[in-house]
């Protein structure tokens, strides 16, 4: 049955893809080859859509693939999404229960003392990779003047948002996201 196969395929993806949404990509391209549910070209489109919609990228891809794969689209989407998310829920609930028990153990505290700065380092690295896309025209590297290298529109918007965020701490991030989307459309940021 297609729903069961969808669930199973995405369950294994969720189980073995460690390290966030993009880690599911190799599993999905393998799935494309094995099952023929979608082509590699489609996968790239699905990735683009998953990155430009809210939510976790891996989960969005599983919903999309489930939707287009066959049977009733909604049931397919449900099977794919549930498959990808189920291992996370099971593993995290187990880890959380164990951790709760040993929370005050000095060894757990020591491990966290290393874990937390590393985690923030990774977040900073992710921030850096977004920053590169946002602020630099990497294709202009080595061509034109230095100023062409920087995406001035984005940098100006970024600085303004940052200053507003520092000044008005009460404003919800959603407001800034909405404003940025509008500014992006009005000043055609994608060009």
């Amino acid at each position: 049955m297609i729903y069961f196969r969808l669930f199973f395929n995405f369950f294994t993806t969720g189980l073995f893809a460690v390290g966030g949404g993009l880690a599911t990509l190799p599993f999905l391209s393998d799935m494309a080859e094995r099952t023929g549910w979608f082509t590699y070209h489609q996968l790239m489109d699905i990735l683009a859509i998953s990155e430009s919609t809210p939510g976790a990228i891996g989960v969005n891809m599983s919903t999309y693939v489930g939707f287009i794969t066959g049977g009733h689209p909604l049931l397919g989407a449900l099977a794919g999404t549930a498959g990808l998310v189920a291992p996370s829920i099971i593993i995290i609930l187990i880890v959380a229960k164990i951790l709760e028990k040993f929370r005050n153990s000095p060894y757990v505290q020591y491990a966290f003392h290393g874990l937390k700065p590393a985690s923030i380092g990774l977040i900073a690295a992710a921030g850096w990779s977004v920053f590169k896309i946002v602020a630099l025209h990497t294709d202009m590297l080595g061509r034109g003047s230095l100023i062409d290298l920087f995406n001035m529109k984005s940098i100006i918007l970024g600085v303004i948002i940052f200053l507003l965020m520092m000044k008005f701490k009460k404003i919800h991030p959603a407001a800034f996201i909405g404003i940025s989307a509008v500014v992006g459309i009005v000043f055609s940021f994608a060009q």
Partner: protein
Amino acid sequence: MRKYWDLFIVFLKIGSLTFGGGYAMLPIIQREIVEDKGWATDEEIVEYYAIGQCTPGAIAVNTSTFVGYRIAGTFGGIIATIGFVLPAFVIICIIAGVLQNFADLAIVKNAFAGIRVCACVLIINAIIKMWKSSINDFFSLIIFIAAFFITVVFSISPVIPVLVAAGLGLAGGIILRRRNSPYEKIFANRNDTENTDEKTDVLPEEGDQDK
């Protein structure tokens, strides 16, 4: 019941506002869970997040389950995850059904280019807020710098630096503990506040779970 509903609504919000994958979720979680609801501290969020990074699955889903569990037990973990996934599920189904060229539309590209600027600033802001609670001595500063550069330069899976750092923290703790270093004092202070928190927050929830 009220708590489950609150949890569901909060994660529905977080799920609709997380643009660009798990990393963009952090600032929204901070606002909703730490600042508005007071369900967890910045420090706890970093812990859940760190675990989400080195366990299988999407980081955002792992973090949702973890936060939900800590706030309202097993059922809370499930509710939070469903809340987080639901907005994306609906949006993706609509796009897959009627708007397959969604990502190619000029308006979407422009809007998303703008949102990406905001996501970047939000991440920077989240790091500034997290900094105090997690990077409080020379050791953690070195780990932060190393994890950042290793990930940027070698683009490896985040699991490796996270696990190595946990090992180093453990080793450092065991070695330094014998000398009664400041390292130990940080934890001593922290344990005190943790304990009082758990008495008021977590224990009643556990009682509910047993029934």
